[in-house]
């Protein structure tokens, strides 16, 4: 496995599998501890829709069987573990009989798109601003304005989203209030559609960017302070290299690497924050799906979304841990 020691790899792999297993088990156990019966809820929905349900008891037994609730718990558990490995979360109870996995697959590209886009923007802006806070040649304005902007760092994106939504969508009407694309455009690879997607995605993305760039900037500031005093920076100055060149090639390049591991610790919170932003913007992603599922008490969908998001988080952490030694040769992995 290249330069990664086998023991390190095995260690990370065990952590990854344990994370997935513990999360999956929690998601399975918690609903079973509660007195609420999903079959009851479905029957209640039918009764509400049709006025009354004939043969309610038989129906209930039938529904339980279709969810596998009539089998012993231990059998249910292992069946569940087998199913989620193949992303089979069963059928949605609210939009019965759609498969949960197909609902998630429809929402996933929107969530991933918004996440990757806003993540790249924040990473670049945040690290650059963080470096400028420390750099001795940065304009005076930067040293005053950036720390002031940093105050927004701690605000969860849902709050910034509400404010932006009110100002730019409700008041000024520059951007649409909700949705991921216009109701009048046909989804597809047409210019109209792409334009509509960008127009709809701007506010959700900006509301994430303005409150998360500070996290990177703060980390970068700390790292830059360390790098600033290193001998190779002094040498570069003594050689008479251009200040800007030193900043990008000597300082930021060395300081940015540990930032990548910071990402691994932060990603869970980032995804959770984005889920909430999608909910308030009614953006067609996992957040909206989750919110609708909570309203409908659609347990298979809630479980499926939670599992997929935790899986995404755990995989990203695992990948960062694996890739990191290749990016930063200074890191040596010990067995533990």
């Amino acid at each position, binding site marked *: 496995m290249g330069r990664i020691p086998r023991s390190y790899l095995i260690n990370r792999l*065990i*952590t990854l599998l*344990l*994370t997935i297993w*513990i*999360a999956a088990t*929690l*998601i399975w156990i*918690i*609903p079973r*501890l*509660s007195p*609420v019966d999903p079959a009851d809820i479905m029957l209640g929905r039918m009764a509400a829709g049709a006025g009354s349900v004939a043969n309610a008891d038989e129906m209930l037994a039938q529904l339980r069987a279709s969810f596998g609730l009539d089998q012993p718990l231990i059998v249910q558990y292992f069946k569940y573990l087998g199913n989620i490995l193949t992303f089979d979360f069963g059928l949605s109870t609210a939009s019965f009989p759609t498969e949960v996995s197909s609902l998630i697959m429809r929402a996933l590209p929107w969530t991933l798109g918004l996440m990757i886009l806003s993540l790249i923007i924040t990473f670049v802006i945040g690290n650059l601003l963080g470096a400028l806070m*420390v750099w001795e040649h940065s304009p005076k304005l930067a040293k005053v304005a950036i*720390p002031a902007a*940093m*105050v927004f*760092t*701690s*605000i*969860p994106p*849902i*709050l910034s989203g*509400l*404010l932006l*939504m*009110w100002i730019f*969508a*409700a*008041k000024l009407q520059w951007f649409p*209030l909700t949705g991921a694309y216009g109701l009048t455009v046909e989804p597809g690879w047409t210019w109209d559609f792409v334009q509509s997607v960008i127009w709809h995605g701007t506010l959700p993305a900006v509301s994430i960017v303005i409150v998360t760039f500070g996290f990177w900037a703060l980390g970068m*500031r*700390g790292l830059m*302070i*360390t790098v600033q005093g290193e001998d190779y920076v002094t040498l570069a100055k003594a050689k008479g290299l251009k200040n800007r060149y030193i900043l990008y090639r000597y300082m930021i390049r060395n300081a940015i690497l540990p930032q990548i591991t910071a990402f691994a*610790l932060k990603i*869970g*919170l980032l*995804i*959770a*924050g984005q*889920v*909430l932003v999608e*909910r*308030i913007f009614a953006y067609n992603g996992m957040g909206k799906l*989750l*919110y609708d599922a*909570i*309203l409908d*008490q659609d*347990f298979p969908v*809630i*479980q499926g*979304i*939670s599992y997929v*998001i*935790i899986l995404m*988080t*755990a995989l990203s*952490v695992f990948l960062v841990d694996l890739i990191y030694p290749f990016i930063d040769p200074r890191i040596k992995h010990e067995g533990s």
Partner: protein
Amino acid sequence: MAEYSTDDNTAEATHKMTRAERRQARRMRRFDNPWNNPKLFWGAGLLLGIIALGILGRLFWDLELVFTGSGMLKLPPIGFENLRGQEGTLANPLGTDGAGRDILALIIIGAPNSLFVGLLASLIGMSAGIMLGFTAGFVGGRTDDVIRVLSDVMITIPPLLILVVFQASFGDVSLTMMALLIAGFVWQSPTRLIRAQVLSMRESGYVQMARLSGASTFHIMFKEMLPNLVPYLFGSFIANVTTSIVTAVGLEVLGLGPQRIPTLGRTIYEAINAGALIQNLWWWWGIPTILLAVMFIGLLLINLGLDEVSNPRLRKLS
């Protein structure tokens, strides 16, 4: 001889100091104290402001107004006019929501509640983290492996999603219950922090010294090592308070969380669902949003201040 002359000099200097100079010297001493940090003061001030709002509000404001239908619907704050042309009244200085609840009474009850959930969850998480971290660092071996792997695993799982599953299954929860649930996800970072520090400090001179002089493990842990960790622990505590409040507000905005107690997040949830953004009822969602923002900014300032306390390089920078 040398000592004598030094003493003499200082005595003379003190004697000759004018009042202004003494004040200057005192100010320098004060600036030298790392805990005397403007960011810390501002942050603590903002949080105390929210606590004061809760206490003074309970003393001077009628909290019965928090019940549905206790006022006119969708009244604006004083000095504003809503779409129906009604003006704000003294009876509801911050306006009312779509069910006639007084916004001022809502925030008097809701804002300290959010802070309470954050503090309680973080406090429990911190206590568990200190115990587990010291245990892992001192006992080592199998115990250490289990604790380390468990904290690695749990730090990856976003609390919001597990709690969504929990609350969707169980329905209504109390504030304390919510804090306890969140606490299950904020013990990892103090555990890792303490474990790493214990491992590196265990071999340091003063700990060795204490051990040689026959101090008990308990004494070494809590009297020798813990005081050195205070700035880090405090920083981790504040960060966890933020995470806990963010998680609690997230649950509330999804329509989960306590259903019978007014919370800031639930107020925002109701406002969004009632279309308050389009109807320009900005006070309904805006006032809770601003209060939460103030809370988060206060916590951030405290954390930035603490960073400067524990990292002198940052102090020189600003």
